[in-house]
């Protein structure tokens, strides 16, 4: 029996302890602060559709781009032991391509949106392979390699649309960015679910997970077992490219315009944070995509909570930083170990007492 107890304290959830605890703490905090915070309503929106609304929905909806990027970033982190800091810039490029293709003619049809998305995907995958080539073939640390695109990505996006910030107005774009008529759940949320399923299937029907982890943990051994680590790393960047295109397109559709300066600004930092909060080692190796997704929601919930507490959008960063530090301190192995020792001592004393009592 004491064994079971110990297991709980040493983290029965394993890797997911931090993100789950973080979500739980935030939920409890919000419920105490304002019991109606998580109230969800059905309401008519501007287009006359019946849709879900409320803080919870805006959290889940708002975290969509971040969650999708976090999925891809987890894979890159696991395989390469480093992070891509150019995702925001790359998303701006993908978004610009998306708009550029849609703007070739005035009317916007479903097929054209699909075409635009495919173009965005291809471009993002090309930039992903550029990063991937630097990392996998030239053996440059990911953060350094992606610093290049980070530096000039938004300028490339600027150049694609000639410095303009064209707007899109079409029911299809609105449907992608907010709601599909008749479905009360925000479309970006549906896309996140779809992407999560795609990843799940990818891991179920391919050996990608095992290979990625092997490359991330011990590249030399992976190579001698016949794994092409160059390919695995490159692939992780290409998959991240797809994620970048998806979130870039969502971002553009949400606003109905492309602004290369502000689209998904600073998202790279949040994405890396989501991966870390998800309990993944930023040095590569074992990973859990689910953790990163929860990590993304933790970040968004934190942001929305702060907004609800009337913190201005520029000041949010400072509070966010404090919460992040608290989270990682709680999650740090050193603190965990000390806490674990303390708890087991407590348990020991108690069990001694019960023995005595008996």
């Amino acid at each position, binding site marked *: 029996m004491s064994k079971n107890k110990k297991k709980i304290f040493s983290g029965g959830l394993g890797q997911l302890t931090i993100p789950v605890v973080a979500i739980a703490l935030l939920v409890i905090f919000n419920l105490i602060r304002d019991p109606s915070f998580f109230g969800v309503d059905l309401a008519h929106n501007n287009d006359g559709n019946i849709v879900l609304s409320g803080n919870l929905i805006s959290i889940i909806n708002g975290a969509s781009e971040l969650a999708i990027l976090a999925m891809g970033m987890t894979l890159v982190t696991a395989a390469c032991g480093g992070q891509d800091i150019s995702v925001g810039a790359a998303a701006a490029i993908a978004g610009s391509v998306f708009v550029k293709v849609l703007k070739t003619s005035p009317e916007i049809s479903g097929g054209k949106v699909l075409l635009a998305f495919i173009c965005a995907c291809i471009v993002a995958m090309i930039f992903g392979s550029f990063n991937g080539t630097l990392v996998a073939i030239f053996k440059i640390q990911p953060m350094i390699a992606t610093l290049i695109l980070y*530096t000039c990505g938004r*300028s*490339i996006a600027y150049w694609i649309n000639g410095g303009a910030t064209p707007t899109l107005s079409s029911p299809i774009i609105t449907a992608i960015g907010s709601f599909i008529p008749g479905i009360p759940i925000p479309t970006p949320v549906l896309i996140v679910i779809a992407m999560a399923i795609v990843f799940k299937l990818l891991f179920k029907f391919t050996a990608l997970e095992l290979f990625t982890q092997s490359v991330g943990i011990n590249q030399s051994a992976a190579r001698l077992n016949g794994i092409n680590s160059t390919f695995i790393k490159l692939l992780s960047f290409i998959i991240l490219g797809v994620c970048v295109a998806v979130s870039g397109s969502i971002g553009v559709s949400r606003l109905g315009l492309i602004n290369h300066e502000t689209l998904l600004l600073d998202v790279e*930092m949040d994405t890396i944070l989501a991966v870390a909060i998800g309990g993944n080692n930023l040095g590569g190796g074992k990973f859990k995509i689910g953790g990163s997704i929860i990590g993304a929601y933790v970040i968004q919930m934190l942001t929305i909570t702060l907004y609800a507490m009337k913190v201005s959008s520029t000041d949010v*960063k400072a509070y966010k*930083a404090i919460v992040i530090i608290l989270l990682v301190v709680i999650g740090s192995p050193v603190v965990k170990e000390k806490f674990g020792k303390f708890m087991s001592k407590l348990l020991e004393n108690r069990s001694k007492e019960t023995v005595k009592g008996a």
Partner: protein
Amino acid sequence: MMKNNNGFKREPLTDTQLLMSITIAIFFGMYILAMIILQGGFLHAQQVFDMLNDNASLIIVSCGLTVVMIGAGIDISVGAVTSLVVMSCVLYLNGGGNIVGSILLALGIGLAFGLVQGFLISYLDIQPFIVTLAGMFFARGMTTILSVNPQKVEHDGFAALRSVKIEINALGYTAPNGNFIPARMELGVVVALLCVVFIFILLKYVRLGRGFYAIGGNQQSALMLGINVKRTRFLSYIISGILSGISGYVFMMHTGAGNATNAAGMEMNAIASSIIGGTLLTGGVGNVIGTFFGTLTLTTIKKIVVSSGLNQPWWQSITTGGMLCFFILLQSVVLNKRNAKKK
């Protein structure tokens, strides 16, 4: 395999020296080319002084970052801390503070960031990227909490301090209208150069400095060799923190005002400078002289772009990106070749 150890023989360049030499060579090559082809400002010594004046604070934070990177760490809070220091000092001076107080405040803020971040990273074993990312968020957030609007320093003592410029007549030139203009260097540049020299000596001749190389080279070995790894790492962040504080003060002396967007993106420029100067993110390899020239190289390319008439805003960042790409590839190729040869 076995070599004779009796005969004196010059050692081949170490990785640090090789990468640094390449950068220095490229910097001078580029600058001389600019003098020949673009002429204009490049022919005057003032061009170099301007580059130094504008980038004194970047040089200072890059030095701190180099120290951290040699120890296999990373500190991305440096730009934000610089910005926070500027805003705090401006408000302090405008609120009736004095010069000494403001300098202490700058150092204090830097030290505080170094202490907290260093403690979390070294003693609680949290990933440096996350800690300093949080540090960056915190410093940026605090800056806007202090003031969203730009603040100009209105303080006589400070104005006097700001106006101190070192003039070197020998390097001056006569303007087209006949006036002689001596080369002017701001006080901040002197501070920056002192920082470079100080860090150079620290890294090369002080026990602690070699400790940074040791923990960056192989942390486990460093521990076995009797180095206090945690304390050494802790001190690397303290140094970076204090230098960010100094950088903030120098930044304020240069601009004379505080703005929430001050030093935006400085952390990435500092990382780029260190890399161009031959510091490896994996640790153990790097040199502050290289970093100094890395900063100058980065600045020169921007100047060249502007002087070439490519004024559109995107050109600077695209060429910077291109140059980064070039240096990163160059390093990779050079180091891979050496490693292959060694085998």
